[in-house]
């Protein structure tokens, strides 16, 4: 088999040239492979961080939109419930987004996420419940209940951030 291949190439190129090419490609593979793998891993770590931060920003944007409607007294029937439902749905994305441990680089995630994953999952569950409660309250008839549900949802962010997100003094945004 090998012989056959060699035979075919030998017919196309002189032996020394072929040998050099084989050598070069072997060296190239050996030398480049780990670097490429490292680069790929770094890119994916950065990608992991980027994605989970964008997910958080989406959560924040929905929260901001709810505030934007209520504090400015805009009339947008159904909108608060819709945003709250989006936030409840996003809860399903948080766990997978943080599954891979990445603590290096431009991130505010604390290592405690991975050393106390059960508590992190509990914080996700509390947040999901608070979001669902708001979605329900916003479909109901009691504005006071909406107000309390908004505050409880806001506090559920803190329920996770207090333990798992670096304080602003240490944030990558302030470095």
């Amino acid at each position, binding site marked *: 088999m090998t012989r056959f291949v060699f035979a075919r190439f030998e017919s196309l190129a002189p032996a020394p040239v072929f040998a050099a090419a084989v050598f070069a490609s072997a060296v190239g593979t050996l030398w480049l492979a780990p670097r490429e793998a490292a680069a790929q891993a770094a890119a994916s770590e950065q990608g992991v961080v980027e994605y989970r931060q964008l997910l958080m920003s989406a959560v924040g944007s929905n929260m901001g939109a709810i505030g934007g409607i209520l*504090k400015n007294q805009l009339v947008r029937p159904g909108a608060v419930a819709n945003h709250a439902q989006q936030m409840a749905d996003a809860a399903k994305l948080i766990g997978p987004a943080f599954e891979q441990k990445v603590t290096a680089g431009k991130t505010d995630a604390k290592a405690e996420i991975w050393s106390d994953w059960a508590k992190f999952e509990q914080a996700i569950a509390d947040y999901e419940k608070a979001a669902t409660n708001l979605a329900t309250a916003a479909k109901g008839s*009691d*504005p*006071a209940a909406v107000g309390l549900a908004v*505050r409880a949802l806001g*506090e559920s962010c803190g329920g996770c951030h207090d333990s798992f997100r670096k304080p602003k003094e240490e944030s990558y945004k*302030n470095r």
Partner: protein
Amino acid sequence: MRPAARGDTDRGRAIGSAAPSGHGIGLAGRIGGVFGFVLAALPFFVVETSAADPVAAPIAAQAEAAAAPAPVAAPRGLRGDPQAHVLEEIARARTRSSGIDRATPLERGRRIFAATGGCTCHTDFPGEGSEAPALAGGRALETPFGIYYSTNITPDRETGIGRWSLEDFTRAMREGLSPGGEHYFPVFPYPAFTGLSDGDVADLKAYLDSLPAIRRENRPHDAHLPYSFRPLLAGWKWLNFTPGRIPDDPALDPASNRGRYLALAAAHCGECHTPRTATGGLDRSKWLAGSREGPEGELAPNITPDEKTGIGDWSIPDLVWYLETGLKPDGDDTQGLMAEVIRHGYANLPREDREAIAAYLKSVPAIENRVRGD
């Protein structure tokens, strides 16, 4: 207890025409006594259901139904709230005696307590979590000058302030002096509280006296010299402390003056948001312009209306909403001390008080001072 008349005139001077009821309860008084107080103390959604209120409609429409009656029970149900039982008390009083249009000292006291941020420095949330004994002290307050431990301000007679007379309490708040005549370290923000009216101080004491007494000895401070040496505080005070009430600013309208009074004397926004001088006094040339070394080492942002480094792009509704929910215009939440003073304090103010504070914030000079990267 002070004679009511004296307190009321005093209060009238303190907050000017911003308190039209003359009982220091403004909107609440207008809605109607105890009932109004409960309404006003709830998040602003409830106030907005008042039929006479033109802004009630949008919120009600948001909820896709007609305005609902305010719930009677304590509305918080959120993390550890020392006021909960008082709210219930007020709610019960409301069902007993609806229609009395006069707030009790307790109700007014609860309002001023909320304006202080709920005195959360006296509850050890960082050390003991949300179930920490309310106002029983023992919280480590890290400052550049050492670690101070907050004191027990529950009505316990042995370890708290249960034996204090109104005069003792007033002297502590207004002059920074203990009942035994010792100077307090300025981690206790008496340079702000000195601006409180006699009436508000008395009401605040009535409220604190109504809370559960908790027995817990105070811990000695852990400050380094010379900041551990009390007699030197006389010098500090001479440099950095101007006792006495804050006169109204004639350039401001009554609501902004009410907000100024609340922000300066009760809510002590400046104690955290203003950077300090080398001697630990507030650098008044950078009023509210942010501090990298706020209490407990926290970064307190620039909250002047500066467009680049402050919060010039926040609208009044943004500010009012923030002081109720801790949610910033971009939807992000608040961490640390600010989250505490909102949750246990400013959020429990009647909405008009948060609006007044917002109006005042919009009136302070914009100062360019970058304290953080974004």
